[in-house]
């Protein structure tokens, strides 16, 4: 493999563009992800404005036709899951943190890692280009169910969906490479003395997420190829007239799609699990219990997928078994959440920005978690399926790991990434705006769902039941919330830029944390560790009686 890791690369291109250094690749993923988050956020703004002022021209976008609306909804979902959550949470954080946290000089396969990023970037370009092709971008929902997405005759554009499939397939290939790298690195590159159960929770959860991704995505890759052949070659895999079956694609999609939720959730939970002990100055509550709960979650995530399809025409006798597994998966997740809460108990809590976002993530996630029970109950799902209740539920379940945990991670690891501290005041303002406006955006959607407001319609006024002041007011609230949420990110972006230029210089261990990444300078040099660290203990020995300080780094000699 690449021994180039020993020699720092020279020149701008070698150092920042075609770099095999995991820290550079992490930042490449990070900035690509932030850029795509801005695109996805803009699409969210278009959706909200269209629902509140249907038919009117939207500032910055223009008039939204029904054709455009479907494409906007589709691309918002696709981008936020595959081009924001995955690159930022899985790729950027895992790339940056796994080698540093386990005391390795780089990933196991640095060149494969670089290839993974470039394939990902290619997939991004392909996806963005689909906005500009004749017929417009894919407009079949982020699930791209055939037959709608299986033929240009049904969905309009010949190019949009094909490019969408190609982009998603390239992205999967990129993350398969990344996933193999994360797993082998964590298993084989650990510093001497670091047993598997001395790894930080972040590393564990990233590894489990990567494994879940690798094992669930295969059938969908096959399904995506089949869908592409249906479109391009004229096969009939999902065309009932040719003996195919549209439901088959739904199964393949959700066999991946539901584990994917945990692929995104687990790294977010990993971030929270790193931050809570540091700012409570207390060991994490039940380290092994959390990791075992993660294993159970990972395994169970493979047997719950059909809860997305209760009323999709599947055999109704499947509903109750899948409902039971679905509802049971709340137990390991509850173990994780309660363990995190118990970490606070008798701690000494400092409300720095990373901690605020970590606690905010838990507070918001609780609502996303409990409303999953509504959707996971088949009989209740008859009413709630495809309504705004579902929309509210999955935003409450995914925004905490994807955005709150990501912001927490940024405020926490930014000093390590860039060598400067982020501004604390702007950070608190960012948190307050994000927390308040997030709830203002999505709480009304639960009520809209109860009123029977279905998803993915471009104009609620078409329907008698939705043509009233109540619905209008709720849409108003949600739109104000969404705009506030987007504007609330300005302090963050300003903070990023300002701190990069003239933030306070960060010392090696500004948070007085235990894990190995804090034992090297901020930012770490090429090759990370000047001397091979040796690990003597687990990662969460805070306020340990063995030490006079309130922390005890993993590599401090006993």
């Amino acid at each position, binding site marked *: *493999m690449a*021994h180039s890791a020993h020699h720092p690369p020279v020149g701008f291109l070698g150092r920042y563009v075609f770099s095999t250094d995991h820290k550079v690749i992490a930042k490449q993923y990070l900035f690509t992800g932030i850029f795509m988050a801005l695109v996805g956020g803009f699409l969210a703004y278009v959706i909200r404005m269209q629902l509140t002022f249907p038919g009117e021209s939207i500032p910055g976008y223009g008039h939204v036709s029904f054709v455009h609306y479907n494409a906007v909804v589709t691309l918002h979902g696709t981008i936020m899951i595959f081009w924001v959550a995955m690159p930022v949470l899985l790729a950027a954080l895992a790339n940056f943190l796994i080698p540093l946290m386990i005391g390795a*000089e780089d990933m*196991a396969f640095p060149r494969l890692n670089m290839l993974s990023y470039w394939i990902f970037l290619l997939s991004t370009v392909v996806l963005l280009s689909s906005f500009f092709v004749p017929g417009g971008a894919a407009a079949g929902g982020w699930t791209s169910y055939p037959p709608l997405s299986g033929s240009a005759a049904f969905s309009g554009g010949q190019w949009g969906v094909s490019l969408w499939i190609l982009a998603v397939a390239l992205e999967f290939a990129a993350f398969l490479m990344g996933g193999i790298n994360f797993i082998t690195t964590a298993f*084989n*590159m650990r510093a001497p003395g670091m047993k598997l159960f001395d790894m930080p929770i972040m590393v564990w959860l990233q590894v489990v997420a990567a*494994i879940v991704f690798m*094992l*669930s995505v*295969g*059938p969908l890759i096959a399904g995506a190829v089949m869908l592409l052949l249906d479109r391009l070659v004229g096969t009939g895999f999902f065309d*009932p007239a040719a003996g195919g*079956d549209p*439901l*088959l694609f739904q*199964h393949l999609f959700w*066999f991946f799609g539901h584990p994917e939720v945990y692929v995104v959730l687990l790294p977010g939970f990993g971030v929270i699990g790193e931050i809570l002990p540091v700012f409570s100055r207390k060991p994490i509550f039940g380290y092994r219990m959390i990791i075992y709960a993660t294993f159970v979650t990972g395994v169970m995530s*493979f*047997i719950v*997928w*059909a809860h997305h399809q209760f009323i999709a*025409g*599947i*055999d109704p*006798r*499947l509903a109750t078994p*899948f409902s039971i597994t679905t509802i049971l998966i709340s137990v390991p997740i509850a173990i994780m959440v309660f363990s995190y809460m118990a970490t606070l108990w008798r701690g000494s809590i400092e409300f720095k920005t990373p901690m605020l976002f970590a606690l905010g993530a838990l507070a918001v996630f609780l609502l996303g978690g409990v409303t999953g029970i509504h959707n996971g109950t088949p009989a209740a799902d008859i009413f709630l399926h495809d309504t705004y209740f579902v929309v509210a539920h999955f935003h409450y379940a995914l925004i905490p790991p994807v955005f709150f945990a990501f912001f927490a991670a940024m405020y926490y690891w930014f000093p390590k990434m860039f060598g400067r501290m982020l501004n604390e005041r702007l950070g608190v303002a960012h948190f307050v705006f994000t927390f308040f406006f997030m709830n203002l955006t999505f709480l009304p959607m639960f009520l809209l769902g109860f009123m029977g407001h279905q998803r993915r319609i471009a104009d609620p006024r078409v329907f008698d039941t939705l043509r009233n002041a109540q619905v209008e007011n709720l849409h108003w609230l949600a739109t104000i919330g969404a705009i506030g949420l987007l504007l609330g990110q300005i302090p963050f972006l300003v903070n990023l830029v300002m701190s990069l230029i003239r933030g306070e210089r960060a010392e090696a261990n500004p948070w007085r944390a235990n894990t190995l990444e804090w034992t090297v300078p901020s930012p770490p040099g090429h*090759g990370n*560790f000047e*001397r*091979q660290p040796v690990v003597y203990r687990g990662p969460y020995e805070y306020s340990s009686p063995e030490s006079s300080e309130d922390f005890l780094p993993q590599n401090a000699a006993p």
Partner: protein
Amino acid sequence: MSRKPESSEQASATAGAHAHPNYIAIWSILLFAMLVSVLLGELEIPGFTTTLIFTIAIVKAYLVAAHFMHIKSEPRFVVLILASAAACLYFLFIGLAPDTVFGPFVE
């Protein structure tokens, strides 16, 4: 800083630690098994043939995996990796079967 995995890879590749199975014998068994399944395919005894052909395929796959891929001499962990992938497929198959095979289809 040394990269231990690399050096141990070299070591395991050159040491020749484990005794080699008789590869030619296994290859001959595989060819014979293939011949049997081709002949069975020609016979076409309903039900029986299909079962037997796929049993033979599984045996062949086992022989290749165990002896050519050396899974037999690998740590259990490798079996766990591959078995977990197979287990996921098992879930997929079970979940798919009721809808894909027995739906309320209209012809």
